[in-house]
């Protein structure tokens, strides 16, 4: 997808470009947001990069020809129409709230917040200030996600009985701050990170927020790297397995009373529809969105258009509220897995 395609799709260019600030100049800003924003000269001219590490902001600004940098987001709130929040997870709520209260449109990285109460406060602030709260839950834009949503909405497999989603791989995110780890870390890991995508899809696909029935992870007081949960809403039950340690099957399986949908998280060629008689039908996904970068670009371009047109964003704060509540419910019943391979260090106590 080219920048031109995006502009046509989002209608950009109809009015003067909005003034935008990117708050947080770490990995996601560098890889996704700033390249898209800086691609348009009229946006780049007014773009401000904000990071408390001013050198980091300057470095990114230099790489993309951006003129303005700032160390504190509060200093730019009167100067911009919109803010892209690309900060460590635990800072999203506080910064988003300040921005919304200041009448600035917000595109927040996922997860929007850490609790249902925080999301409610953000939604109220956005409503009061008449500004948009958009969230970068890009996976809703992934072609398999969209197609599954369509199939379920069309009733292609009838009532859903089971939903399983398995997503994992070795953690390789080039984090600039390592905010999730160490003594000053958030103590919330793969569930809040990857789970913000996965549980959002679960809620979106089902059209409701199921109840968490079990949750366990491998935290020893730090941020979990593996999390497993199960859920139900009386009709559908399901399970989610997330990992930063090992590659999982990286796919999903949705069983309904009239068939099953099987798909891959990362292979966007097709999803499969399996009939009760086990007849498999391949449903091709001929989307222009071919990579996660394409999806990320669309979200940023959509945000620029939303600021000008005041239409709803691709993914709003209200959309992701059920998944944040589900994540909160998981952490509330947090327990550690049985891990004999960990606990067997007792056998070498003689040496310690």
């Amino acid at each position: 997808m080219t920048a031109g395609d995006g502009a046509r799709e989002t209608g950009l260019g109809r009015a003067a470009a909005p003034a935008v600030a990117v708050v947080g100049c770490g990995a996601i800003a560098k890889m996704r947001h700033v390249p898209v924003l800086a691609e348009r000269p009229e946006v780049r001219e007014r773009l401000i990069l904000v990071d408390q590490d001013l050198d980091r902001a300057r470095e990114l600004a230099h790489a993309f020809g951006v003129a303005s940098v700032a160390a504190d987001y509060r200093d730019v709130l009167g100067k911009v129409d919109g803010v892209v929040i690309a900060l460590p997870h635990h800072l999203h709520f506080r910064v988003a709230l300040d921005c919304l209260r200041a009448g600035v449109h917000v595109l927040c990285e996922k997860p929007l917040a850490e609790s249902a109460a925080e999301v409610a406060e953000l939604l109220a602030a956005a409503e009061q200030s008449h500004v948009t709260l958009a969230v970068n839950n890009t996976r809703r834009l992934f072609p398999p996600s969209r197609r599954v949503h369509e199939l379920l909405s069309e009733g292609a497999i009838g009532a859903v009985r089971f939903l399983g989603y398995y997503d994992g791989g070795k953690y390789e995110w080039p984090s600039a701050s390592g905010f999730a780890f160490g003594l000053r870390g958030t103590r919330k890991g793969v569930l809040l990170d990857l789970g913000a995508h996965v549980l959002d899809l679960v809620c979106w696909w089902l059209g409701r927020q199921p109840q968490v029935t079990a949750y366990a992870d491998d935290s020893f007081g730090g941020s979990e790297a593996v999390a497993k949960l199960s859920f139900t809403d009386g009709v559908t039950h399901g399970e989610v397995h997330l990992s930063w340690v090992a590659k999982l099957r990286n796919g999903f399986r949705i069983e309904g009373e009239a068939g099953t949908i099987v798909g891959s998280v990362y292979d966007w060629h097709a999803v499969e529809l399996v009939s009760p008689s086990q007849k498999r039908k391949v449903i091709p996904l001929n989307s222009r969105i071919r990579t996660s970068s394409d999806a990320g670009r669309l979200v940023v371009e959509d945000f620029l258009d939303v600021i000008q047109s005041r239409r709803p964003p691709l993914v709003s704060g209200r959309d992701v509220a059920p998944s944040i509540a589900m994540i909160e419910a998981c952490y509330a019943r947090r327990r550690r897995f049985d891990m004999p391979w960990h606990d067997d260090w007792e056998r070498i106590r003689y040496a310690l």
Partner: protein
Amino acid sequence: MRSDHRVLITGAGGFIGGRVAEVLHSSGCAQVRASVRRWAGAARIGRLPVEIVRCDLADPAQVDLACDGVTAVVQCAKVTGPGSEAPLRNLLEAAYRRGVTRFVHLSTTEVYGAVDGDIDEGHAVGPGQSDYARSKIAAERVCAEYMARGLPLVILRPSIVYGPFSEVWTVKFVERLLSGRWSLPEVSCRGTCNLLYVDDLVAAIGLALWSDRAVGETFNVNGSERVSWNQYFRALGTAVGAGSLDPKGPLAAHADAWLLQPLRTSAHFLLNHQRDRIMALYERYRPVRRFMRSVQRLMRKVPDTGEFSLYRRTAFYVTEKAQRILGYEPKFTMPSGIALSVAWLRHEGYVCDGGSV
């Protein structure tokens, strides 16, 4: 309990360093400062409420900061390849200047080269059979310099360390065994395996940290059982429910390994030098994905040429010195080590209940 000790563990994002951090923290015997080169390597130790610092051993300033306030250093970081002595020297220098009371350096039994028979620490070192072995030999020389300068240093030479989180000796073999397509004839695997469960190595590290008699010494660290590679592969395969392997004669297996070597070398070169571009192509184009996956599968099922000599070797690395001086005593047998490893593999999803990856 020695909770007044603060131990810097380099390479804490790795298999051995990660386990050292877990055990020292969980046992409460020391405060842990875990060092990782990139935050991307912190997922495993991030589960612990311990101090984690980002430190590139090539940067003397970062290394000096990482050593600030620690009483001991356990060097588990991977420092191999050309020029690998400089980062180790940075660490030793910082530890020396900061006056740490113990420095434990992890070497390898590979420093003895392609030898047979019972091998103790008095055996000659070298010549190195691989870049890895040559780097470790060079690293031991640098350590010797600092021992001579008075740094209270201990060198440990572990053998084949396996267990949970071991990509090389656990995960890779299980994936190969479960694929059913691995072609390694039994006749090629009659050598001695020298299996060492990771927690036994951590025990040796603990002893090296606390025993005054350890200073200035070098120790082999090995399990107590003399098992062959065939025994290990069979036991591991049985534990994960793997079927029989691709039956191939030694000649055909060797020929496959040699024929694939240029492809293996090229793939490694490209991934090392053009990783971002290749991954972008991988993500965007389905035919590229298919091709790369089939190459990966092929490389997994065909052993590396270097593996044949390892699996034939009958050396057994004796640990009498570690037992006598440190009180080292391996606690994990092959069955118990494999049982824990497979429990972990199942938990992480490497092995499904049906026996497939």
